[in-house]
C-alpha cells in the first residue's frame, strides 16, 4: 500500500498525541490520586431504604478524629439531609443512593460529581478546606420537577461545627 510521506508523519504524530492523552489521564488517576466512582458498595433495595442503618436516617456522622461520613438519599425532587453540614479541614466520604429513579449529585463548581442509580450506592471522598456554602444540584433528568431539585453543602468552621454537635 502506498502511503504518502506526509501522511506517515501525520500518523506518527497522531499516535504520539493519543499515547500522550492516555498517559496524562493515567497520571491524574494514579499519581495525583483523583479517585473514580467505582463499585465499592453492595447493592441495596431502593424500596427498603428505611430498613437500612445508613439511609433510614440520612445524616452526617463522625467516624474518626477528623473523618466524617455523609449518608445522602436522593429522591424526586429533594436531597436528604438538606443542608449537608460538615466541618472545614476534614475528610468527608459521601454515600449516596436513590429512593426512586436515576439522579445526579453535583457540588456546583467542583469535580465532586456522581450519578445516583437506584440499587447502587455511590461513594466519593472530599476534603473541604475553606468554610463556605456550595450548591448541590441534580444533573440527571428525574421527572417533571427535575429543575427544582437542589440542596446545599455547608462547610462550617471547625469550632462552630463542634458547638452545633454539642447542642444536639
Amino acid at each position, binding site marked *: 500500500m502506498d502511503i504518502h510521506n506526509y501522511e506517515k508523519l501525520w500518523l506518527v504524530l497522531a499516535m504520539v498525541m493519543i499515547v500522550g492523552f492516555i498517559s496524562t489521564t493515567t497520571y491524574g488517576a494514579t499519581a495525583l490520586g483523583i479517585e473514580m466512582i467505582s463499585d465499592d458498595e453492595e447493592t441495596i433495595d431502593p424500596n427498603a431504604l428505611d430498613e437500612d442503618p445508613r439511609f433510614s436516617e440520612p445524616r452526617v456522622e463522625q467516624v474518626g478524629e477528623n473523618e466524617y461520613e455523609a449518608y445522602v438519599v436522593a429522591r424526586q425532587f429533594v436531597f436528604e439531609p438538606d443542608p449537608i453540614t460538615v466541618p472545614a479541614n476534614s475528610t468527608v466520604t459521601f454515600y449516596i443512593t436513590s429512593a426512586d429513579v436515576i439522579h445526579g449529585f453535583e457540588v456546583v*463548581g467542583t469535580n465532586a460529581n456522581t450519578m445516583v*442509580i437506584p440499587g447502587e450506592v455511590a461513594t466519593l471522598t472530599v476534603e473541604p478546606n475553606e468554610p463556605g456554602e456550595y450548591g448541590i444540584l441534580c444533573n440527571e433528568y428525574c421527572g417533571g420537577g427535575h429543575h427544582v431539585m437542589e440542596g446545599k453543602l455547608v462547610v462550617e468552621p471547625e469550632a462552630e461545627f463542634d458547638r452545633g454537635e454539642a447542642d444536639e
Partner: protein
Amino acid sequence: MSDALEAGASTFVDQFPAESKVVRAALWSSFLSLALGAVFGIIQSLHRTDVLRVFESADYYTILTAHGVLMVVSFTIFFLVGLFTWAVVRSLDRPVENIRYTWTWYGLMVTGSLMAVIAILGGFVDSTSLSADVLFTFYAPLQAHPLFYGGLAIFLIGTWLAGADWFRSWWAWKQDNPDERIPLQTFMVLVTMLMWYIASIGITIAVVGFLLPWSLGLIDQVNPLLTRTLFWFWGHPVVYFWLMPAYLLWYTVLPKIAGGRLFSDPLARVVFVLFLLLSTPVGIHHQYLDPGIADGFKFIAMTNTMFLLLPSLLTAFTVVASVEHGARQRGGTGLFGWLRALPWRDPAFTGMMLAGLMFAAGGFSGMINAGLNINYLVHNTLWVPGHFHLTVGTAVALTFMAATYWLWPQLTNRRLYSRPIGLAQVVLWFVGMALMSNAMHVAGLLGVPRRTAEPQYEGFAFEPMFGSIAELDIQLAVGGTILFVSTLLFVVNIALSSGTPRVSGLSSSLPPALSGPNDAPQVLDNIKLWFGIAFVLVILAYTLPLASIVSRGGLLGPGGDAFPMIAAPIKSTLTPILSVSVEWLGGLVA
C-alpha cells in the same frame, strides 16, 4: 461502475428511477423530522434561557424527548438509509434486487418512528396514559408507554432489513464480478452496517428483553444499571452510525466538488475498518460516573476511546489533502493561496467545509470528555450538549444538508430552487452553532446542568469568571434562533425545488481516487475477518462488566418501582386477558 454515470451523460434518476423514488422518500422523511425537531429545538433554547416560556416547565421534558428522538434517530438514520441506497446502487451500478423488499424496510422504519413519536407527543395530553417523557436515553426506572419501545424495535428491524438489502446487492454483484475489488462506497456501506449489527445487540436486549415486557407489566422490575449499560453499548457506536454517512460524503463527494479527486482509496478503507473495530468497545466512557461499575473497566474504555481518535485524525488529513489537490487542479497556488481557488460560492462545498471545521472543534471537546478525570468537571453539564451539537449537530447535520444541494438535482432532474439561499443557509448554520455551542461549553464549565427546564436555583448562583450568565443565555437563545431560521431555509429551498422545471444535463460524476483500490492490500476487503475481530473485541470489552452488574444486582435488579406508573392501567387490562388465555391453555393440556 457505470460508464454512462461516470461520463456524466445521465443522472441517477435517469438510470434508476425506481430506486430514486425510495431515496427521495427516505430523504423527505429525514427532512420532515429535521423540521419538526427544529421547532422543538427553538422552544427549548428560548425556554431554558428564560427568554420565552410558552409551555409549562414540566412539558419541557416532552419537548426535549421529541427533539432528541426526532433529530438523532429519525433525521439522521432516514438520511443514512437514503444515502446508502443511492451509494450502493450507484457504485455497483445495478438496481436493487427487489424493489418491493426495499419499500418494505422503509415502511417498517416509518411505522416505527410514527409509533415512537405518537407515544412522545402523548405526553402533552393529560387525559391519556400515552406518554414517553423519558428523553432519548430512556433510563429505567423512568418508564415510557409500550408504544414507544415497540416503535423503537420496529424501526431497528427496518434498519437491519435495509442492511440486508445492501448485502444482497453486493452478493449478487460479486457473482457477476468475482475478481473485482468492492467499490469504495459499497465497502463503506457494508462496513458501517456490520458495526450497526454488532451495536444493535445491546439495545435489542435492553428494549425487547427488559423494557418492553416491563412496560407491558409482564415483569415487575428491571436492573437500571444493566439497561443503562446496554443502552450505551449501542449509544456510542450509534454516534458513528450518524457520522459514517458524513464520512462517505467527505471521502467520495467533497473532493469531486472541490475540483479534484480522493487522495487515497486504501486509507479510506482502513479508516472505516478502524471504526468497525473500535466504536463499540468504548460505551462505558459514557458511564465514568456510574456507581456499580469498577474503575478498571472505565480505564479500559478510556484507552480504547483515545485510540478511536486515530481514524478521525486520518480522515482530517485525507480530506484536506484531497481538497488541496482539487484547488491546485483549479489553478490554486502557494502555501495557503490555494484556498482562494476553491468553489466557496457552492453551498454544497462551503457547507461541508464548515461542517468539517466544526468537527475539529467538536473533536477537541470530545477528547476532554474522554479524559477520565477531567470528565468529573463536565459530566452532565451543558458542556456535553455543547459538544454533540458540534459533532452530530453540525459535522453530520450540516454535511447532510450541504450534500443534499449536490445530490437532490440528480435524484429529480430539477435544479435547486436557489443556490444563494443555500449558501446563506449553510453560513447561518455555522454562525448560529458557533454562538449556541460556545455558550453551552462555557456554561457547562461553570456547572450549569444539561437537560433542565430552568437552570436557576434558589439556594445558589453560578459564578462566571468573566461576563455573566445573562450574556450566555442571550448567546444561546440567539444561536438557537439562527439555527431554526437556517433549518427553515433548507427545508423550504428543497420543497420549492420540486417546482422548478425538469432539465437534462444535471449529472455530476464521481472520479476514482488518485491512489485507487488496487493499491489496497486484498485483506482490507475481507469483511468477514474484520467482523470477527470486532465481535471478539466487543465480547472482551463487555463480558466482565455485564457479568459483574448482573451478579451484583441481579438480572432484574435489586428492587424498585417504575416511574411514571403508567404500567398500572395497562397491566389491569392485560392481566384478565392473560389469565383467561392461561386457563384456556390449561384446559387444552388437561
